[in-house]
């Protein structure tokens, strides 16, 4: 908890852009968690207003083609987009960390197999692998999670592997090996805590990639299913009515972009704090 507050305040203080990212991220997370409790209206109530109605005080984001108020739908979308991406990225982080550490620490055959596997996944065009997985598993939340996890896995494996390689060469690992520690003990006690920093940074990027993939999938109709909404599926919904009801596409697109941007900005700030690059003046 203390660490969390420390990091939040550190990001807040680092610069205006990071502070903006942090503020909007916190706001979006708040909306995602407490959105359903706020008096915004029922996101699934058909004919809550006119069909394709423009924004009004009652329906600040307008209404959709079934007369549903769009604001509560966007709030619901924030929740779905964040939740799906976060779950997927956590799964990816767990698998990626395990495989990356194994590859980096054991080397040889394990390394070759893991690295090759990551290459294969990496060589698949990201969206095509997404479409394939969505096709195999059927559209929906499970396949969205699987797609994001698979797409972000090679990135995490690579980063964890290279960090593990450098950590494994450090004195405390050798000392533990000499003391007769088991591989499991070394991986869990000595390597894992020391690759977590790199994983955290990568995680924020994976999260933003995950959000992009989730919304792209939903945009192509392969993500969350109606009447549930993700920001991508709302955008798909809105883009069909772009010419006569632009508020749908604009509001969901803007919120989606803001969500991804805030994750990216916070990620940048975390990375800058963990690994400050102090270039020099050239004059």
């Amino acid at each position, binding site marked *: 908890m203390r660490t969390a507050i420390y990091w939040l305040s550190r990001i807040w203080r*680092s*610069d*205006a*852009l990071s502070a903006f*990212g942090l503020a909007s991220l916190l706001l979006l997370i708040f909306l995602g968690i407490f959105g359903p409790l706020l008096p915004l209206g029922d996101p699934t109530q058909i004919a809550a207003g006119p069909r394709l109605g423009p924004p009004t005080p009652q329906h600040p984001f307008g209404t959709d083609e079934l007369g549903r108020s769009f604001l509560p739908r966007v709030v619901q979308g924030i929740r779905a987009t964040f939740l799906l991406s976060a779950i997927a990225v956590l799964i990816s982080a767990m698998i990626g960390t395990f495989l990356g550490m194994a590859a980096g620490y054991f080397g040889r055959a394990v390394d070759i197999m893991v690295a*090759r*596997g990551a*290459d*294969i996944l*990496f*060589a*698949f*065009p*990201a*969206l*095509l692998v997404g*479409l*394939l*997985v969505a*096709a*195999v598993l*059927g559209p929906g939340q499970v396949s969205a999670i699987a797609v994001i996890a698979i797409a972000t896995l090679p990135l995490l494996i690579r980063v964890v592997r290279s960090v593990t390689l450098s950590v494994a060469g450090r004195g405390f690992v050798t000392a533990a090996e000499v003391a007769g520690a088991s591989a499991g003990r070394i991986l869990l006690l000595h390597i894992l805590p020391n690759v977590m920093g790199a994983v955290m940074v990568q995680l924020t990027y994976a999260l*933003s990639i995950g959000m*992009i993939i989730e*919304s*792209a999938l939903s*945009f*192509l109709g392969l993500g969350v299913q109606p009447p549930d909404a993700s920001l*991508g599926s709302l*955008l798909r919904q*809105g*883009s069909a009515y*772009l*010419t006569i009801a*632009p508020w749908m*596409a*604009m509001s969901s*697109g803007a919120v*989606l*972009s*803001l969500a*991804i*941007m805030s994750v*990216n*900005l916070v990620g*940048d700030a975390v990375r800058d704090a963990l690994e400050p*690059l*102090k*270039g*020099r*003046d*050239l*004059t």
Partner: protein
Amino acid sequence: MRLLLYLLPRVAAALITLLGVSVLVFLALRMIPGGYADILLGPFVTPEAREAISQRYGLDQPMIVQYWRWLVSLLQGDFGISMVTQKPVIHEFIRRAPVTLELAFIALGLALAVGLPLGVASGIRRGGRKGLDAARVVGAIGASVPDFVVGSVLIFIFSVWSLWFRVGGYVPFTDDPVGNLQTMLLPGLTLSLFGIALVLRTTRDAVLRVMTEGYITAAVARGETPRAIIRLHILRNAAIPVVTVVTTYFGFLLGGAVVVEVLFSIPGFGLFTFNGLLNRDYAIVQAGVLLAAGVFVAINMTADFLYAVIDPRVGS
């Protein structure tokens, strides 16, 4: 010799990667519910008709046999036949290559033209100082606004006020160069936004990283001008990570920017493969994914080669 010894294992690894991709895509396609028979016959599929279609396309064979046949014909340069058109899919891919290439080059060109100078400027300007700089804002926005949001906005703008550009449809460059640009610039721009951010951020990071190196301090200490330092030392040394992301980005573009192609109805690799997947036209999807992976791997090898050219330490 250094290059050869350095590249040979990479070629071998690339081949293994492609073999893995081929197995995965083949298996995945066979696991997808619904087949070509469903698509072709619509709702009127009877068990007999389905059987007849399966037999016609050899889909009744054991999977391993199907895979083996596919692999053998692949090695002979035969990528299979589309079930829809009954024509070799490779012709269709070759025909689409210029479209995908053009789109990729427009996007890459824009990304480099905007991203590189901004990235270098931002990286050098930062020089240890903090503060808001415009390039960071551009980078943050570009990396965060998904291409279909950009595309939707552009479509909205240009379909309400048709300002010279055209939304959707594709005109071959050879038929009508102006019309071609009218249709290709918007999707190119859409795709490039992420690329601009990617190149910008990577360049900025790389420049910043190089700026911490001892030889930059050494050059400053020798009284070199900032211009000379940038030109002689920073650009070349910062190039390696930039080459990595630029090639990855280019591979991604060539592999098919499905969403943008769908959005703007651009007949490129991505749209073709996507439709093939929807139609369960196995040969198209298999060839599409394999080609995309092949291009990706080939481009990565080019990148490996470039590293070796840029950085004499690589491979020795």
